[in-house]
């Protein structure tokens, strides 16, 4: 059994340093946007949250494929934690995006922005992941079905983005592409550091949850070995793999 706690402290320290640097850059280094002023700075948290969350969903699909190929439970656990964390980041991305839309366009919601709309669709799909797991009782079948879902939904993410983008007659000018687009230098540096910070945060939280879940599983196994089966209360039905 792998130990997920190893290296967690170092990773956490790097994460804290990177996020602090990113915050300093956001508030003291990056210039104010000429059009939008101060509110544009939410971009440095919103866009990284959304990108990391989408990558987390795809990662969950890859881990799910690993589970289907090997049949080992640890891959299912990895897939579950990746999707679980990506959902939390995704909700954060949606809320910050909505806030930005309100401040800059005057509406909480803007159908004209294909990225925002595709993101909502992806989030709606992944919102069914936990209910699906919860409603399958047999743990072995639960993990198998969840992995099938994760693979299909992971492939759905890029597909959905292509279609929604094509469905807009007027696409908003893309300030941001994955290559940095046409952001001026200081803004791009700030953005890249913020993206790294959020990605590190995702990695840390993923590792932390894996470590916690593993430790709990091992503790239960030890208690059962030392004190007998009766000493360990059976787990309640849960969406999480155990």
């Amino acid at each position, binding site marked *: 059994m792998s130990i997920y706690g190893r290296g967690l402290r170092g990773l956490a320290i790097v994460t804290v340093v990177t996020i602090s640097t990113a915050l300093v850059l956001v508030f003291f280094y990056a210039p104010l946007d000429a059009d939008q002023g101060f509110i544009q700075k939410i971009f440095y948290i919103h866009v990284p949250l959304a990108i990391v969350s989408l990558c987390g969903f795809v990662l969950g699909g890859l881990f799910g494929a690993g589970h289907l190929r090997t049949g080992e439970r640890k891959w299912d656990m990895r897939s579950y934690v990746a999707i679980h964390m990506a959902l939390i980041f995704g909700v954060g991305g949606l809320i910050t995006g909505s806030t930005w839309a309100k401040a800059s366009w005057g509406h909480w919601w803007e159908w004209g922005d294909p990225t925002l709309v595709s993101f909502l669709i992806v989030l709606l799909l992944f919102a069914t992941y936990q209910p699906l797991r919860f409603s399958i009782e047999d743990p072995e079948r639960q993990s198998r*079905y969840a992995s099938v879902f994760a693979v299909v939904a992971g492939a759905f993410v890029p597909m959905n983005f292509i279609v929604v983008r094509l469905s807009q007659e007027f696409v908003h000018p893309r300030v941001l592409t994955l290559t940095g687009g046409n952001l001026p230098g200081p803004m791009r540096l700030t953005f890249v550091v913020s993206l790294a910070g959020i990605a590190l945060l995702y990695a840390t939280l993923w590792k932390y949850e894996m470590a916690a879940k593993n430790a709990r599983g091992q503790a239960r196994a030890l208690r059962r070995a030392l004190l007998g089966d009766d000493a360990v209360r059976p787990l309640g039905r849960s969406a999480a793999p155990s």
Partner: protein
Amino acid sequence: MRTALTVLRKDLLLELRAMETVPAMVLFAIVTFVIFHFGLNRATIEGQLAAGVLTVTLLFASMLGINRLFVAEREQGGFDAFLLAPVDRSALLVAKAAALFTFLVVLELVAVPAFGLLLLGPPLGPRLLGLIPVLALADLALAVIGTLVSAIAIQTRARDLLGPVIGLPLLIPALIATARGTGPLLAAHTSGSPPGKWLAILALYDAVFALLAYALFDFLLED
């Protein structure tokens, strides 16, 4: 392939004898048109609005079929029998998707003329030829995703709930393409041929998810 044909024949025969799913889907679609008439408070509709009404109606009617798709297998031990038989398991996916596709075609043979009669403003006749490729590709998407989702949902406790909840978001790209592809066809003035862009997107969607479903379906049957 022979296995798939046998199972497909079984499903079609069952539907022909019992008349359970398809009549319900047809009735549901026609009732939905009536509801749209009152809901929109319009005697006739055209263009993108008409395309939306048609797409949404067909989608929701197909949900009835998707929910019923594996019920007989589950309740009467068809899954166990199929697993015991020395046959390729993907045959079940092919057969079920083909059965669902057939149901949808029959549904549309009735529902589309009914739509032309009840709601559509411009005459349906000259638009029919253009509608066929769009609807055929949309049916393929519904059949593939529907079979996959139905196979997942049938093994859950809340099976009628989870099917649509997982299926609808998964189908959104196909529905966007269907609605946008039929919109220009149902407008007052139309060239009569569907936009190639949306046909291509539908075909791509069908191909990607058909391959995925083919690769993953085995895992839903193991026991």
